[in-house]
Structures are given as C-alpha cells and as structure tokens.
C-alpha cells in the first residue's frame, strides 16, 4: 500500500448567527476555517483529517510533509510521525496528518480506531464547553437547558477585566442548580495575544486567589490560569491547592513539551488536541506518561467536528480521560450543528451526557461533500 496523493482543501464554513468567543474579546467570529486533508492510496482507501487552520496549514503540508509521504506505506505511521514534528521547525503545525494515517489503518482493519487502540470504553462523558462571556442570569438559564438536554458538566470562560466578577457566574449557577452539574473554568491565559486585544494577564497571585474561590465552590478544574511555558509557576500554583485540579496544554506542542509539563508537575489534567498539539497516536504516548504519573488527559477539541471525532477515539481508548470537551454554545452561532456542519451528521450526547464512538471504520468521518464543495476556497494537491 502506497500513498498516492494528498489533497488539502481550505474550507471557509459560515456561522449562521453572531459568535463572540471570549478569547477574541469583542470580535465576532463569522466562520469556521479548516483545512480538509485527504490522503489517497493506491488501494482506494482514503484517510481523512482536518487542520483547525487556514491556508498556512495547506502550504506547510504541501511543502514539508507531502514530499516525504507520497510513495510511502501509510501503515508505517510511527516512521512517518517525525516528519510532522520536523515540519514545525519551519512551517505551521500539521499534527492533524496522523489522523489521516490512522483513519486509513482503521479502514484497512475495518475497525473504529478506538477499538484498534484497545477500546477502554464506547462512550465518553461530555462537558458542554461554552465560549462566550455572558451575565450570570443568562448562564443560569443556559445551564437549566443543558441539564434538560442531559449534560452533566459545563465549562465557563473567565475573561472580564476583574476576574472576581467572573466568579459570579459560578456562584449563580451553584445557587440555582447546586451540585447537579460539574463546573469547569477556563481562563485562556496560556496564549492568545496576551496583552494585545486579548485579555488581562493574571499572574500567579491572582490565579491563586481565583483558584481558591473556585476550590471552595467545588469546581472540577481550572484551565490555563498562566502562560503556557510557565512550568514552575504552574507547579507552585498547583502545590498550593488541595482539591482543585489545574488543567492545560492545548497550546503546547510536541511529546517533549508534555513530558516537561508532566515532569515539572505543572498540571493535573493535560489537554492536548489531536489537531493542534501532537499526532493523535503520539498523544497516546502522552496519555501513557500521564497515566504513569497519576494524571488525567482531557483533550481540547475546540475547532471542528473532525477534530472532535479524532479526539473522541483517543479519549475512548485510554483509561485516564474523565471528560471530552463538547463545544456547543447556543444561541450563539457556534453550536453543535455549526461545529459539525462538515459532517453528514453532528455528534450528539445520549440521555446520560455521553458521546458515543461511532461504530464505523477509522474515525468514522462521513463528510457532507456537497456543503464542503460549496465552501471550498482553495485546493492544494500533491502527487
């Protein structure tokens, strides 16, 4: 079996309603930009992946990956993984390529990838990941709806100039529904243009004060309270807490960085993303390291439905994944239908709040070809 061609399509998918993610303070995000990657083989099997990116990923794949992948056997994934890592020396991160290779492997095996990897479970508990900053009353209403829909966990964003004001959302939700829902908090302090049109940088003392308040309200975790490379300050923060886990890692790249985060004791919960942080199979190594250190892995999935599927298989195959991020923030333009609009059918939760691994070979990615074609803005093919 040989890789014959790699096609990257930059797809610009519109959102139907305004969407103001907390991390882009004030700005409306009108679309989901992604690069759909198709790796075609001489045996007719095609592996699918998608980058949470624009044309920069297509160029990086064309320039730094395709010349080394074309003609290779796509099942020799461990041998091809270093090419993705090296492409980041000069180009955009293209870790999503490993998703396409495992998709081929799963299709050849006739098995869902999660089963190929040992199948720890068939479903993973979802948390409803919100993105917008909304007033406490509105979030209480949102949470009542989520509970009715079956969600058992929700994540809020802390992005106000005064983070103690953000605490009021958690207070109001606890007062309204008690412990019926698990609450996570994301501060998005790991990256995203700190200080520039972004948000206020907290620093360790503010992070600790907020963390102590959240701990008192039985919050499930605090995500990204500090910049992504402040390994030592993260450890110091973590050392001062009792029951509040610290989570992060979506903006860290490469097995070596996760090794550092683990060895330095920076996080309780690691959050790599199969499209952003490392190859999806390489993330299994991160999960193994985490397991040996008694840590959890809860993949970041905010991006598109294909990434959600890839992370879902990973999450279902490991014993130390407590929750899967399930991006969904109606009535804004970013809900599960918008998120998964490139798929024939959106992923949903069952009545107990779990997402099921689709019982299809590979990652079970079934595309809405018609919609993708309609919104394709450029195509880059390597042979």
């Amino acid at each position, binding site marked *: 079996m040989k890789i014959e061609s790699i096609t990257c399509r930059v797809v610009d998918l519109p959102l139907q309603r305004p969407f103001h993610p907390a991390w882009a303070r004030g700005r409306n995000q009108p679309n989901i930009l992604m690069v759909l990657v198709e790796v075609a083989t001489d045996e007719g099997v095609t592996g699918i992946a998608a980058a949470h990116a*624009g044309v920069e990923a297509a160029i990086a794949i064309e320039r730094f990956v395709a010349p080394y992948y074309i003609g290779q056997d796509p099942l020799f994934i461990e041998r091809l993984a270093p090419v993705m890592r*090296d492409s980041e*020396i*000069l180009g955009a991160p293209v870790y999503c390529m490993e998703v396409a290779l495992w998709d081929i492997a799963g299709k050849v095996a006739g098995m869902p990838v999660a089963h190929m990897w040992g199948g720890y479970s068939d479903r993973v508990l979802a948390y409803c990941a919100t993105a917008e900053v909304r007033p406490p009353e509105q979030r209480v209403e949102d949470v009542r709806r989520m509970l009715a829909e079956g969600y058992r966990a929700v994540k809020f964003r802390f992005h106000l100039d005064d983070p103690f004001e953000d605490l009021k959302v958690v207070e109001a939700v606890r007062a309204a529904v008690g412990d019926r829902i698990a609450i996570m908090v994301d501060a998005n302090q790991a990256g995203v*243009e*700190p200080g520039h*049109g972004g948000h206020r940088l907290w620093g360790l003392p503010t992070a600790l004060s907020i963390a102590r308040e959240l701990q008192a309200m039985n919050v499930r975790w605090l995500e990204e309270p500090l910049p992504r490379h402040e390994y030592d300050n993260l450890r110091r923060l973590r050392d001062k807490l009792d029951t509040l886990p610290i989570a992060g890692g979506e903006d860290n790249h490469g097995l070596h960085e996760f090794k550092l985060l683990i060895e330095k004791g920076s996080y309780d919960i690691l959050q790599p993303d199969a499209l952003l942080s490392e190859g999806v199979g390489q993330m299994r190594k991160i999960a193994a390291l985490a397991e040996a250190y008694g840590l959890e892995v809860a993949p970041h999935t905010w991006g598109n439905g294909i990434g959600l599927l890839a992370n879902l298989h990973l999450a279902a195959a490991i014993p130390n994944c407590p929750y899967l991020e399930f991006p969904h923030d109606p009535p804004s333009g970013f809900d599960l239908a918008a998120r998964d609009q490139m798929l024939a059918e959106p992923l949903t939760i069952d009545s107990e709040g779990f997402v099921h691994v689709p019982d299809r070979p590979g990652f079970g990615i079934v595309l809405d070809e018609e919609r993708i074609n309609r919104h394709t803005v450029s195509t880059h093919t390597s042979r």
Partner: protein
Amino acid sequence: MLPTTITGVRSRVVDLPLPAEFRPAWGRGQVQTSFFATIVEVETAGGTVGRTAAEAGPEAAVSIDRFVTPNLIGQDAAAPERLIGILRDAEVLGSPVYCVEVALWDIVGKIAGLPAYKLWGAEKDRVPAYCATGEVRDAGRRVEDCARILDEGFRAVKLRFHSDDVREDIAVVEAIGKQFGKRLAILVDANQAGVLPGTGGHRQWSVQTATEVALELERLDVTWLEEPLPRHDHDGLRRLRDRLGTLRLAGGENNHGIHEFRALIDDGCYDVLQPDAVLSEGVYQLRKVAALAEAAGLLVAPHTWTHGIGLLANLHLVASIPNSSWFEFPHEPPGWPASALSQMLAEKPWIDADGYLPVPDRPGFGIELDEELVERYTVARFG
C-alpha cells in the same frame, strides 16, 4: 498616531537562484538550484521602514498576514518588547515568524540613527568568521577546499558529517588536520537535531554513536561538535557532554522560544547555543538567551544559514554580547557561495584580512536591498 505607529506589513516571497547545483548534506540526495526567502517590510506612519526576512516560502507570509499583521497595525513599532507576545503566539497555529522582531528593531535603530549592536551596548565591531560548508565531499577535495578557504582569510571551517559510515567523515577531519594543523580550526556539524530523521533523511545516531564520534573528534582537537542528537533529547545531550573534556557541544538552531533555550541551559545540554534571529526567537529575545548563557558560562554562536538579511541580524546580535564565539559564514562554492546567500543585499558581507566579519555601521541592521534583483525574483506578494 506616532511617527513609529505601524501602518502596514508587506511580504515578498523570492525564489533566488544558486549559481550552480548544490547538494546539501542535510537533504541527502536532494539537488538544490534555488532557495526561498520571504522579505518583510514593516511600514510606519513617519515613513521609516523596518526590514527583515524569513527563511521560508509563502507559509511565513501567510502566517504574518493571518496572525501578526492584524495585531501589529496601530501599535508602536519602537516598543518591540511589548509586541513579542504576538510573534510567540503566532507559532501556536502558524509558522514561526520570529524574524519580524528584526524589522521592529530595524525601525528603532533607524529612529536612533544607530546600528542595532550599538543601540544594545556594543561589545565588538567585528567577529571571527568560520567558513561553513554545506556538502559532503571526500578528503582529497576538502583538503583542496581548505587551502582556498585559508587563502580567502578564514581561520576556521565547519564540515558536515553525513556519511552512513562515520569513519569516512572522520577521515576528512584527519586529512585536513594533517595538512594544515593549527592554522585552521575545525568544527563539525552532524545535523541530527531534526531534518526528517529516518525518512529520506540520514542515519540517526544513538547516544553511543555520538559518543564514539565525539571522543574521536576530541582526540583530533576539533573545536565543537554540532547537533549530535535530536533537538529535544536533553538527557542524551547532557550525558554525552558529561563524557567530554575539550570538545564543545553546540546546537539549538531548531529549538524555538526562550523557554526552550532556558531548558537547554538548565539541563546542561550544550556548551555553545546556536539560536538564529530569523528562526528561533526574536533577535532581542536572543539577547536574553545570551544573558542566560553568560550567567551559565556558555557561548552563543548563532546559526546563520538562511539568507544575507538573517546573517546581518545575527551579526549585530553577537557584536552586542560578550560571550560570542566563531560566527557562521555560509560559503560553499560553487553551489552556495557567500555571494548567493547575500544576493538580495546591495553590499555583500565579506571577511577582512584577519578573517573577521565587520558589522556594517549603518542605522538599524544596515539592510540595503538590491531592489532590482528582489523584484526580478519575486514570486508572490502578501499584505
């Protein structure tokens, strides 16, 4: 609006011809006849233009357009320390664009009417250059090359180790040492830090192979051994370094971010750090890396094999620090002579009679373009 307020960022991707076929040791089998650079100009309200260039094709221009320019417009170019977070964050999703900091400091230097190295507290106005070769050639030809290199005025040469059998590479060092003795210092680069190990790349060394080679090079009085192991194998590098006495270990061109250099220093990986001001971090951020290195008693010898603009940026950097060493001067006729590397510059940098490279005494980095040539080889424009 200040005179230094940024009003635009424009990029030109140039595909620059080489005068003869070039067979880079690091791209085994590959024959190179041209190289890409992306020339970037940052425009300000007062008309001062800052210049830089990425060692890259369109991937860098796209990353600048998408992740940097929207956050730079309206900002004060003369406050680069406030803007570096934008460049670092670009790498979360895009290609590394650290080269942009060169353009900002170029503006500061022009406003001050001072060369960058004087702006930063000059330590020297010329640096001893080593002639960096790029191909694998047999001992006989290399001895001939080195006679020419000595004639040209160089006092040091860097050789590439890329043969399947390392004894062939060692034989080249032996022949040159025997012929020229102490008149020519010898540096060795194994390029094991990245570049597609195992996939169309070259044989990957184990710690044992690296140790065997290093001990032999130490016996042959070689100055340094560069990149003997993968760029994130901190433990392996430290173990190797601990075995050595007089042979220095060098590396770092493929590491990115001040946090990674801090880790390399803390972990005791290298004697000589080799970041590159257009690849690894912002040029001024590398002064911080140099400060960390100075405090740890280490040397800094930037990687410069990119293009003439990168060479100049790194030259100003080392002229401003006390702990510099030999300076990389890429020069491998007939395929890649120094004049090819610097073809986009109106004035091509060259060594003086003592083998030193003088720092141009022009404001900023003294980057004066051969506009006619740049326009002739421009293949794409952005911004």
